[in-house]
């Protein structure tokens, strides 16, 4: 099949981060500082991405502000014509660096929020004083008028604070709030019992988001990502494998999504060895799960196949043991009982469950 050009690229500039959130989306095996790509390699990757059709570039990590060359990278992306979005915890964004990023053409900041109070936020992030520093950065962003999205990662410990989260987004002048319930990949799978919200919390969240969305229309836009374990149907992961987005890891591996390396039989090309165009259109990894032909009959005969493409490949592998299977979140999946069992186990073990924090790369 012929793939369309990609729209968005996630550039994981580094896996280094001052925080150690127990739901970090980085892989459990992280890339060390020594293995990170040089400034010129990233700049060239951004130009290749723009020529390929990428419109949106997400500068992410780890904490992208851990890279001293962040303003140079932003400038390179801006000059390539990309819309530049910085996905950050805010730690390391001093007023001087914000000046440099604005001058370099940064378009938008997505600031993560671990909690609405210092005690909880610092416990989740595993970084004392982090909340206070983040709030100071948020005020700097607001004063400058840099377009802001607040990304509130939600789970058992902070979902009940949703009302305050929404208030904070409005107070900080954010135009958009992501209410992103933890998805269970990477580090989060080690913290299922501690993080999985209850069904009651999830239902209350849906109601609150719907109500706030109507009340704040035109002031604050919402994007709501429910915890998919409670859904009847899987998420449309990445809008389909190799269909809309791609990801470059800190060491230059080009991935169809940030969790794709958990599929052990796939081999991923590096940006230092092959052009982005070749990798996108012709590599085995990007073609492995394109389209819907690889899916089982359960999916191919389903009217939702063009909506969710059978769900998430990484989740299919992690839970059903086969990356080409129906995402077990789907109630039609023959492996759906495994999700039900995981939910029951998580609820049984939730009381007093501690966090396994992400460990920093060497």
């Amino acid at each position: 099949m012929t793939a369309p050009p990609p729209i968005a690229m996630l550039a994981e500039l580094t896996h280094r981060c001052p925080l150690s959130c127990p739901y970090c989306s980085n892989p459990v095996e992280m890339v060390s500082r020594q293995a990170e790509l040089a400034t010129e390699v990233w700049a060239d990757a951004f130009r290749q991405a723009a020529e390929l059709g990428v419109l949106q570039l997400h500068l992410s990590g780890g904490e992208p502000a851990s890279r001293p060359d962040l303003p140079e990278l932003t400038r390179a992306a801006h000059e390539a014509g990309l819309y530049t979005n910085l996905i950050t915890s805010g730690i390391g964004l001093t007023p001087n660096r914000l000046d440099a990023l604005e001058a370099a053409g940064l378009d938008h900041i997505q600031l993560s929020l671990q909690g609405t109070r210092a005690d909880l936020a610092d416990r989740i992030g595993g970084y004392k004083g982090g909340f206070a520093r983040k709030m100071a950065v948020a005020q700097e962003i607001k004063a400058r008028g840099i377009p802001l999205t607040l990304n509130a990662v939600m789970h058992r410990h902070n979902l009940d604070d949703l009302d305050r989260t929404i208030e904070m987004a409005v107070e900080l002048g954010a135009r958009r709030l992501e209410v992103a319930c933890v998805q269970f990949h990477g580090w989060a799978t080690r913290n299922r019992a501690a993080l999985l919200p209850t069904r009651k919390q999830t239902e209350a969240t849906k109601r609150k988001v719907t109500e706030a969305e109507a009340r704040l229309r035109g002031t604050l836009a919402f994007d709501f990502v429910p915890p998919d374990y409670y859904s009847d149907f899987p998420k449309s992961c990445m809008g389909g494998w190799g269909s809309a987005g791609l990801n470059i890891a800190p060491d230059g591996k080009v991935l169809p999504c940030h969790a794709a390396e958990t599929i052990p039989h796939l081999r991923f090309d590096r940006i230092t060895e092959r052009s982005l165009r070749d990798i996108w259109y012709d590599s085995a990894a990007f073609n492995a799960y394109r389209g819907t032909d690889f899916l089982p009959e359960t999916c191919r005969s389903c009217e939702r196949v063009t909506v969710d493409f059978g769900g998430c490949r990484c989740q299919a592998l992690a839970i059903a043991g086969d990356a080409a299977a129906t995402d077990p979140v789907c109630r039609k999946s023959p492996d759906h009982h495994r999700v039900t069992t995981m939910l029951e186990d998580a609820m049984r073990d939730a009381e007093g469950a501690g966090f396994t924090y992400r460990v920093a790369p060497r």
Partner: protein
Amino acid sequence: MTLALAPGDRPYLPRGVRMRPDHVRGGQVLLAPEKAVALDPIGEAILSRVNGQASFAEIVDDLAATYSAPRAQIEGDVQTFLQGLRARVFLMVRP
């Protein structure tokens, strides 16, 4: 807040939202925080008149004259299109 634009409202694209040509797919695309919207010729015609100076009524007048179309119909189309953008905070207005 009501999203409907009054005749004297002057719509504008806020910082972080812009229209640019899509060299790979053709046409124009509206770029906004974490979103890219491919514009059809009608969307492009409307947004190319959104500059923070022209009022909603002036934009509708100009489009009706340019395309020799009934004003009421144009007004409805422009109102719907701009309200959709305003709901996502991709568009703001000055009174």
